[in-house]
């Protein structure tokens, strides 16, 4: 998108305050700021353990101008279900309830609660900001860590041996009304998806890729560039799916080779060109599959 149009599409709301404890260049902090811009002040944030438990500030501080509940790791979706029910009893239907969970609290530890809430089609927006490992405890691998990546628990000699879980497909399989991927590097696409999610009732799921300079090992100033390359290389395509069946690409930016994305990050430094070739093949395969889904959805309309 041309740079001159972007500012008109990003709301003015400023609900994140400075002095928070995110690392310089944190994609997760920016993701929260952008999502809250669209959600506005009538929002309650439910926060299972994740980087943001630190970013929100030490007691008695808060870095948000909206209420934020710190909850246990596995309970994000369950607590949000309860808060939603309480608000509904009070007649406060116009207050947004969101869960703000990392990949650990979503892909691993919080998956059961999320699955249960999605089954009941609880009325909240679940945002997973995905930095692809347990970053705040010291970069331990999660089931969101991509194949081949270094973490402190998957050192270069034994890098991540499993593929990243396809969380979007898992959520789509629950046939919730709305699920989408988004990126801080495409802010208009991100706020548009929040806006669309707000217009829908039921469980809505946003999977937001949040580049992490210390965890992925790249220069702080390249955070946006890294998110952009993830989308451009099709490692992280920007899509949305309604009712688990109607898939659609929301962005189709200029293509860059997977190699460019992988080679820009220290966590993949040990990979050989051949291994990157395998990653590239897998990316192409999944992208083709998504395209089939999108084309089939298009044909139905």
């Amino acid at each position, binding site marked *: 998108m041309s*740079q*001159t149009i972007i500012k008109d599409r990003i709301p003015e709301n400023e609900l994140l305050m400075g*002095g*928070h404890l995110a690392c310089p260049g944190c994609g997760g902090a920016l993701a929260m*700021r952008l999502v809250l811009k669209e959600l506005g002040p009538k929002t309650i944030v439910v926060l299972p353990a994740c980087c943001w438990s630190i970013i929100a500030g030490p007691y008695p501080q808060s*870095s948000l101008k909206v209420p934020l509940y710190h909850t246990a790791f596995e309970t994000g979706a369950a607590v949000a279900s309860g808060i939603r029910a309480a608000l509904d009893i009070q007649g406060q239907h116009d207050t947004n309830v969101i869960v703000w969970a990392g990949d650990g609290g979503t892909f691993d530890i919080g998956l059961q609660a999320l699955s249960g809430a999605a089954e009941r089609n609880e009325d909240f927006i679940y945002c997973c900001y995905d930095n692809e490992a347990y970053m705040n405890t010291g970069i331990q691998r999660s089931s969101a860590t991509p194949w081949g990546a270094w973490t402190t628990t998957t050192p270069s000699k034994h890098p991540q041996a499993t593929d990243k879980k396809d969380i979007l497909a898992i959520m789509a399989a629950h046939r919730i009304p709305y699920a989408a991927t988004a990126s801080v590097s495409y802010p208009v696409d991100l706020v548009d998806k929040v806006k669309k999610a707000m217009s829908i009732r039921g469980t809505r799921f946003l999977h937001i890729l949040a580049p992490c300079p210390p965890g992925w090992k790249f220069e702080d*100033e390249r955070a946006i*560039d890294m998110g952009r390359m993830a989308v451009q290389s099709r490692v992280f395509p920007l899509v949305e799916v309604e009712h688990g069946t109607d898939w659609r690409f929301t962005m189709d930016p200029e293509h860059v080779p997977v190699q460019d994305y992988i080679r820009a990050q220290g966590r993949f430094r040990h990979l050989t060109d051949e291994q990157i070739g395998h990653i590239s093949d897998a990316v192409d395969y999944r992208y083709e599959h998504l395209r089939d889904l999108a084309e089939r959805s298009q044909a139905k309309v």
Partner: protein
Amino acid sequence: MSEQNFNTVPLHTPPLSVSSSSTEQNITGSWKYIQPAYHDRVAPCIAGCPTGVDIEGYMSLLRDGELSAAMELLQCENPMPAITGRVCNHPCESRCNRANYDGAVAIHAVERVLGDMILEEPLPHWTMRKHDERIAVIGSGPAGLACAYHLTRLGYNVEVFEKEEELGGMLRLGIPGYRLPREVLDSQIARYKAMGIIFHTGMRAGTDIGWPRLTTEFSAVFIASGAHVSRLLDLEGDCSRQSLRSGLDFLREVNAGGRPDIGKHALVIGGGNTAMDCARTALRLGAEVTVVYRRTRAEMPAIDEEIEDAAREGVKFEFLASPEKLSGTGGRLQLACTRMELGEPDAQGRRRPVPAGGEPLLLEADTIISAIGEDTGLHDLQAELADAKLAMNTWGCEKLARVFLGGDVAGDERTVASALGAGKRCAIYIDRQLRQQHGEDIPEERLEAIRIGGSESLSMARWTNSDPIMRVSPQNDVVQPADINTAYFPREPRHNDRHAALLKSFEESNTGITTRDALAEAARCYECGVCNECELCRIYCGEAAIQLDPGSGRFVIDLDHCKGCGVCTAECPRGALVMERLANMD
């Protein structure tokens, strides 16, 4: 905690810990060792423009739909955009940071469209005649006209002395009508007259009006007499024939409306713009034309487009051929040329042609036009001025000199753009000198501060403090391609000039681009180095540390909370932000 104590907790305290302050009290800005700063810089096009036109500035105004502000900014620096839009060699475009991405912005075409619009508009209400001083300008070529224009806008009374009967100098005598239609030149000159510039034609300085009179009646004299003496071709044989013509005289005759009979075959000797103009003019008179040049295409000093247009129209080229001997039988001329090859580079870096040996090349023609360059006659001028005991001033440094020199005669590059830049430069020097005579103190540094990107061109907007582009802090470093974030510029091919199929006609051959395409071209401009408030820095700041200051309308960085990640600088599409090392880190 006993049950007793628990009950003493006040009732309004909630049963869980609640935050009572914000993180804003944490000075997380102390983590950083580098910090961002808005430093508007100079776009390479402007640094490359000998006229010193604020190209990025007017492109930005055009993008915002501020057409009249764009026209005003263009006219502030360039007295004749409709003319430069047609005949300039546009070094701005070869410097354009977009050149290696999807093609340089077609700056010349946008300038031409804007220039034509300006000619349609009534003359703006500029404040003129605020000083009593009269200034004489010698020569009405581009340098003289530029100096007269700028001095008039600065408030002086200017009189121009032209030795020919018609105004325009090289613009009229040297540049053919198919490149610069006479109507455009005439309406531009009509505007200068309307501004109050007084023109005296048929007046040669030094003879029709003496130097002593010029320097006593006028507070300053600007000499821009140009380079109008055709250099002679040194050939063996009889060179006095009618059929061996000087390029400049030939152009002068045709441009004045003459249509000489030059026969079926014409040879043009030389590789510069005069040679191209002669070749295309001869073609239009019905001749088959061959250009003979000592070096190769790569070394030709002519504007690239002119060479391409000449070739497209059917001009043939004979490279690496140096004319040696002229002979003639029965009306036909024979030119013997030595075959050359390229040797070592000369002082200007162009490879010098050296004889290659072998058989000479024999060419036949009805007419031979020699266009191997023009001299200035500076020597004679210097002698004249020395007789009149006048000191000359080319750089505005000598406090007492009344005579200023600029343009071709002063050794500036032989282009319209350089002449316009020289005219502006001398106008500023004269303004400074005259104001200093009135007791104003204008230090040398002030001249340094208005130099654009460290080049020789000066900014009139900066000199008159009338720059409409709100710059935070103009820095004179030039934006490099690596400073541009191309992610924000979708590839979009350049809009190219259209050419009329008017071969052998003296009508304008390049028809330019449409107004609509010109606006689309302006939108392609990266606007290098100057913040245009796209707000990407603010949108991407994860610390919410960049906010708009409603008072100044500018962005301010909350350095107490900026952690120095550099995302704002990396994402700035145009290099208007830089990361600076914190002073206390050194």
